[in-house]
């Protein structure tokens, strides 16, 4: 295989994505489907190859370097897999929606950018594709429902700022390593390099949607088209963000187990797990609830990678692919519900299990996976992360387990409210979703089962080769996990189930099963504030900017006053004074001239 073949996965989707803007209405679906299929075929063909392709760029100053190896091939394959499924899903879902040409164009451009970012072996090249994704993100959200541009702006600013940090990180890394080629960088963790790492990490975890760069995701869940949620925040961005986080943690910087950065990463992970899942628990909207889980699950990955022990990293990466599967699957079920019932508000849903049995089954499988129920895939990856977290500190383990409890609780609530419970009269006419919506869901649900029961498939073929020699021949495939931890997990899940049953009985409604937590003494007020976006860093930033702009406004007024009032006022005042001095009385003029003469003579006296 020629190395230049690496340009294809970037160029093909990019060209067709650009063409999508002008293609006739009828051809769009076909072309999008075909290009996504070609991309998947390419990714399959390229997987397991090792290729390096580069040529000088920017007047020879920067290498346009692409590198395909195990890890990038894996991410590219996963991205292509999800893109293909999402396109199939969209063929039906987007029918009759506005701005379809933009939607498909963004999907294809997104594939191109993601492939570019994954293949890039040069930090600046990576940044180029990374920023391309940022632009597409904006466009994607903006074509949602009317008013979505506000959310698009929010996402653009949040991700843009973190990308700016990443840019600084790249500059610092360049300065210290003397090269921009990713595969040649291997920095010891000096304070300066630590700073560079943090900056790069901000870019990575913000792409993945970790706290505190998360707040646009729930808003986007409300505003953006649903396939976008299933594609970008649920799968593609997790893949890219965690991919880059792993690259910088494993390859570019020598991250030791005891280092402060490791602690920092684990702390970010643990906090993200807990806070986001707490928010998810109290959501009353299908998509919004899922969006908080999309944030929460990132915490597990960051926690896993942050432990710096092989089992944690394997767990983190395994969780990354698992999360991409079940989270996009969950969003797709949400989309099916939205498509068939016209709403995602849990208050007006209920009893859909008979109306939409396949959707319900897919939901149950994916929900079980995300809750970490054995033998689904989420269970295995979470167990690996528990194992690693416990070895680094009880507190991290506790955070992960508590997160698991709330995850289970919130999905019990979601499932109960949407698919079980009483059947509503206004939902009598609801039918099962059409085939093109079902196929992607079924494929994903099946993959969740396969990745769980036959977990050696992903572990041996995709993930463990990434770490290579670090594993020292160890394999985590199969059911090898700690029995005690497994028992604890099962106990926790059972606890969540019992809690749900009990509370649902008490309140008489599945949707209110988490109300004891929602209205607990201290939490209640905190939740109120959080629902009002009091803790949203973006809102805080906006308030700060508001103060700042007021100060600037005042300064501007001051400057305006100087130019518009003060200077003209003084000039006119002086001018009038001078005018008054010119009385037209000639002796005055003569005396001026004489005084002037004496002044001149006095001046020339030396």
């Amino acid at each position: 295989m020629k190395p230049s073949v690496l340009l294809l996965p970037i160029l093909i989707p990019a060209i067709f994505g650009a063409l999508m803007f002008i293609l006739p209405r009828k051809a769009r679906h076909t072309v999008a489907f075909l290009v996504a299929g070609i991309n998947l075929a390419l990714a399959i063909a390229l997987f397991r190859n090792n290729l390096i392709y580069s040529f000088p760029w920017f007047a020879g100053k920067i290498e346009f370097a692409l590198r395909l190896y195990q890890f990038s091939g894996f991410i590219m394959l996963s991205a292509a897999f999800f893109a293909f499924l999402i396109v199939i899903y969209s063929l039906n879902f987007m029918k009759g929606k506005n701005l379809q040409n933009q939607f498909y164009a963004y999907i294809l451009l997104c594939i191109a950018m993601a492939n570019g970012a994954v293949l890039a072996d040069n930090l600046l090249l990576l940044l180029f594709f990374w920023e391309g994704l940022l632009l597409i993100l904006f466009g994607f959200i903006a074509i949602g429902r009317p008013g979505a541009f506000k959310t698009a702006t929010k996402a653009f600013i949040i991700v843009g700022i973190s990308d700016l940090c990443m840019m600084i990180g790249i500059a610092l890394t360049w300065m210290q390593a003397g090269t921009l080629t990713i595969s040649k960088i291997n920095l010891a963790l000096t304070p300066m390099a630590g700073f560079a790492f943090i900056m790069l990490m901000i870019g990575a975890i913000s792409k993945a949607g970790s706290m505190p760069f998360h707040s646009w995701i729930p808003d986007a869940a409300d505003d953006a088209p649903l396939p976008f949620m299933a594609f970008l925040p649920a799968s593609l961005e997790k893949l890219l963000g965690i991919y880059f986080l792993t690259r910088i943690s494993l390859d570019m910087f020598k991250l030791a187990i005891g280092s402060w950065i490791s602690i920092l990463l684990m702390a970010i992970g643990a906090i993200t797990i807990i806070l986001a899942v707490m928010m998810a628990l109290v959501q009353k909207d299908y998509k919004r609830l899922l969006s908080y889980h999309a944030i929460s699950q990132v915490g597990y990955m960051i926690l896993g990678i942050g432990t710096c022990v092989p089992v944690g990293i394997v767990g983190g990466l395994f969780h990354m692919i698992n999360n991409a599967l079940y989270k996009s699957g969950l969003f797709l079920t949400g989309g099916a519900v939205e498509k068939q019932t016209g709403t995602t508000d849990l208050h007006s849903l209920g009893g859909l299990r008979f109306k939409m049995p396949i959707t319900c089954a897919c939901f149950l499988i994916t929900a079980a996976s995300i809750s970490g129920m054995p033998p689904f895939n989420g269970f295995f990856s979470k167990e690996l992360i528990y194992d690693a977290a416990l070895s680094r500190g009880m507190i991290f383990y506790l955070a992960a387990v508590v997160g698991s409890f709330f995850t289970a609780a919130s999905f019990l609530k979601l499932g109960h409210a949407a698919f079980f419970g009483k059947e509503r009269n206004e939902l009598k006419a609801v039918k099962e979703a059409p085939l093109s919506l079902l196929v992607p869901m079924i494929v994903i649900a099946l993959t969740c089962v396969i990745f769980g029961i036959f977990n050696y498939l992903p572990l041996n073929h995709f993930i463990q080769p990434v770490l290579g020699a670090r594993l020292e021949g160890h394999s985590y495939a199969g059911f090898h996990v700690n029995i005690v931890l497994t028992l604890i997990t099962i106990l926790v899940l059972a606890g969540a189930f019992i809690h749900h049953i009990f509370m649902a009985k008490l309140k008489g409604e599945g949707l209110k099963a988490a109300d004891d937590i929602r209205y607990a003494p201290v939490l209640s007020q905190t939740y109120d504030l959080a629902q009002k976006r009091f803790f949203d860093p973006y809102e805080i930033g906006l308030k700060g900017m508001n103060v700042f702009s007021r100060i600037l406004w005042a300064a501007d007024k001051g400057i305006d006053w100087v130019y518009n009032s003060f200077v003209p006022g003084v000039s006119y005042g002086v001018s009038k004074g001078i005018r008054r001095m010119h009385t037209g009385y000639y002796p005055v003029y003569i005396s001026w001239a004489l005084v002037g003469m004496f002044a001149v003579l006095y001046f020339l006296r030396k």
Partner: protein
Amino acid sequence: MVPLFVLIPFFSIIILNLFPKKLMQHLSFVWLGFLSLAQVYLVAARPVWFWDTKLELWNLLFSFRYSVDVITLVMLLCIGIVVFISLLASRAMISDVHQRVNFKNLLLVSLIGMNATVLVTDVFSLYVFIEITAVSSYIMIAMNKDRLGLEGAFKYLILSAIATVMMLVAISLLLLLTGNTSFEAVGAGLAGAGNSLFVRVSIGLFLCGLFIKSGLVPFHGWLPDAYSAAPAPASILLAGIVTKVSGVYVLMRLAISVFGLTPSVQALLMFIGAVSIIIGAVAALTQTDFKRMLAYSSISQIGYIILGVGCGTKLALIGAVFHLFNHAIFKSLLFVNAASVEKELGTTDMDKMGGLTQRMPVTGITSVIGLLSTAGIPPLSGFWSKFIIIIALWQAGNFGYAAFALLASIITLAYFLSMQRKVFFGKLRSGLENIKESSMGLIVSQAVLAIITLVVGLIFPLVISWR
């Protein structure tokens, strides 16, 4: 044949007045027009037959020593242009036959005086010709015999008399000191005399006399009254060229080739220049009379020239001479604008005007060119000369003055824009519906001057390297 610049106007006065007045007014118009345009041609093309032939017969009778350099040439060119414009304006503005004849005679006298002033090479002749020019100016200002004209002429007369006294005293002191009056001898004598009180007083007095003639602050008292009271063709001539020749040119000539630019003289000139710039500009801000505002603007622009002279580097002098030329053009242009408005409206009060561009398009548009050039907006000619002066000031290390000159341009723009808005732009003021564009003579002069401003600005490198 250079003395012909003086002799032909002189004999023209005698011969033209032999004709009856009705014939003379037309004859003299044609003749003066020819004379002034011929002067422009002779300077611009510089035919060898004129400049290099000696007048043997004349030299037997008188010895008229003259010297010609670039500054002289520029001044002769300006004199030719402005006299021509003033002549056109007089045709349009003066209807009385006697007055026309009088004005043309005065114009010829003024031409003699100015041409001679820029050609002569000794201080006493200089004084004589300055006086000839001045006397013709007094009469021109007072020609209408109205109250304001007489008052303006009187103030000019009085202050000029003081200037005369100062200059005469200075000349006599110089004569005492050096025993001669020619530029070379006085210059050499002064250089040999050291820096005695005697020398300093004579230089100081001479400079003060010239400050009065140029109208620099605080010696400017006569200028606004004289400019605004004079009949339009006279004010064009006065503002455009008379004060430039009898004040600024002489100052430049003496400072460079006789007194020498000593540091104290330089400091004095730059200071006086800067004061004139700011006082003139600020005072112009609140004027309500069109011509009066232009008069204050003149003070301000002369300040720029003196600032350039005071700086004294080669570049600064080039800038000063260039600005002198530009000022002659654009200030004449603006005074012609004022004249044409005055002719149609019968007033120069800006508060009674408004929206005149609709009725007088040529006047309105050419005045924009004139004011933008004055304020130093590229690519018009005024920009380049101001720019050169500022660059020269900066290069010579006078950063404060350079910044000051730059900032003062803003005020220039401020008062001119408010003038333009009041007079020409906006809605036509009620009662002015029947106004028409003024007569052909004024339109032509406006167009010619505006084109000169524009073209000189566009081809300024050629103009700068002209010699």
